[in-house]
């Protein structure tokens, strides 16, 4: 399963992008990500979960998942609209990619 995350906006405006293949991750991390996707009921989520809100400097997110059967789904959301499970998933993927690209 491939998970691709793009986070843009925020105070810095710096676009951060990361992708993981769960088959190449330590099993504990892969299991954590699979659990988060299941709890979020990811493939049943609307493609646009953006919550219109006042405010500024909030993150925007785009999460794309392709499972092992080839099913692909993308969810676009933001700070005010993101479900907690996707927030945790995006964080893990972006952090993991950051370390990878640092090597």
């Amino acid at each position: 399963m491939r998970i691709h995350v793009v986070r843009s906006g925020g105070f810095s405006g710096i676009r951060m992008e990361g992708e993981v293949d769960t088959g190449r991750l330590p099993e504990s991390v892969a299991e954590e990500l699979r659990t988060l996707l299941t709890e979020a009921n990811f493939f049943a989520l609307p493609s646009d979960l953006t919550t219109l809100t006042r405010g500024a400097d909030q993150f925007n997110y785009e999460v794309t998942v392709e499972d092992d059967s080839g099913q692909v789904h993308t969810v676009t959301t933001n700070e005010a609209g993101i479900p907690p499970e996707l927030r945790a998933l995006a964080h893990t993927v972006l952090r993991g990619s950051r370390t990878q690209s640092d090597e």
Partner: protein
Amino acid sequence: MHTRHPIECIVPPYVLRSIQANGTPAQQVWAMRTLTNSAQFRGQRQVLAEIAPLALAPRVVGKRRMIYDAEHGFILPGRLVRSEGDPPTGDPAVDEAYDGSGHTYDLFSEIFGRDSIDGRGLQLDSTVHYQSSYDNAFWNGQQMVYGDGDEDLPPAERLFNRFTLSLDVIGHELTHGVTQYEARLVYWNQPGALNESFSDVFGILTRQRALNQTAAESDWLIGAELLTSNVNGKAIRSMAEPGTAYNDPILGRDPQPGHMNDYVNTFDDNGGVHINSGIPNRAFYITARELGGFAWERAGQIWYYALRDRLQPQSNFQDAATATYELAGELYGSGSLEQQAVRTGWAEVGITVGEVPQPEPGPVPIPQPVPGKGCLPVAASVLDPVLRLGRRRSS
């Protein structure tokens, strides 16, 4: 133009004030309502200020800061950990949010005569320790929110420090609140980039004033304390030289343009609001450097009145250039050094103002006393000279 109900003009405000002070309870209520209604048109804040002690008695005005701790969760505002007047807590994030929102309040209050975000003493709420390893600070429409950066990672892996560490970041976030109550610039494309730029402008002015720095002494960097030594960069943004703040293997390169020729069209970042803000940022920097001295004294005044009285939700860069140019003429004189500096500032980023005679009418004149019509002359007599700068509606 502003409109007033004719009845409100029958009784002069000084009589109303007398009734309010000395009349029966019912008369006092009536007088208060009439005074506040007639003072509601923009600019008569002084009238409100005079009657505030009585009319707005239950409302506490002045600096009121509340700092909350999200304890690394995402529920806002979180647990209250420091209120106005409380001593320092020893938690740097809490105390920086408290001190920083205080410096920002003081800039708006002492330099621009504004009482807090809404101009009416709105309580300043800030939450720190938002989520864990959160590389951001934001304004959510009601309050300021700060993450701890990468403070949970080993030092060698950290890119961002806690977001309260830069005073201009705190000023930036609080200014988003001011913009929400004034020009209400939509957060998309050029209006959004202006929204961002005004936050950087008053953020850096907050910092310069706290450090007593002139325009020449300031580094004009936004978020200089946010990046760790692991990042190849000096700040998040450079108002003096947009595009030069960082160039890093992980964060990439600072994408800000400093000229309209390099304007970035994108769907990311709400249409590049943090990218194209480099253009108006540099226009302000050049204006302030042209004028010299403390940037909040003249350049800051012009930009503040543009935000408060002239710009509207859909205003673009050209509108901002025109507004600041016209304001410079009204505040300091047509053809003044100040107006020339504003024109130079915008010209350097590729935006032309003041080349052709403006067909717009001049400043709204202060009404002259008219015998038998008590309202206008009394009202006008308490007006600050700048308060005649009426909001100009676009046709």
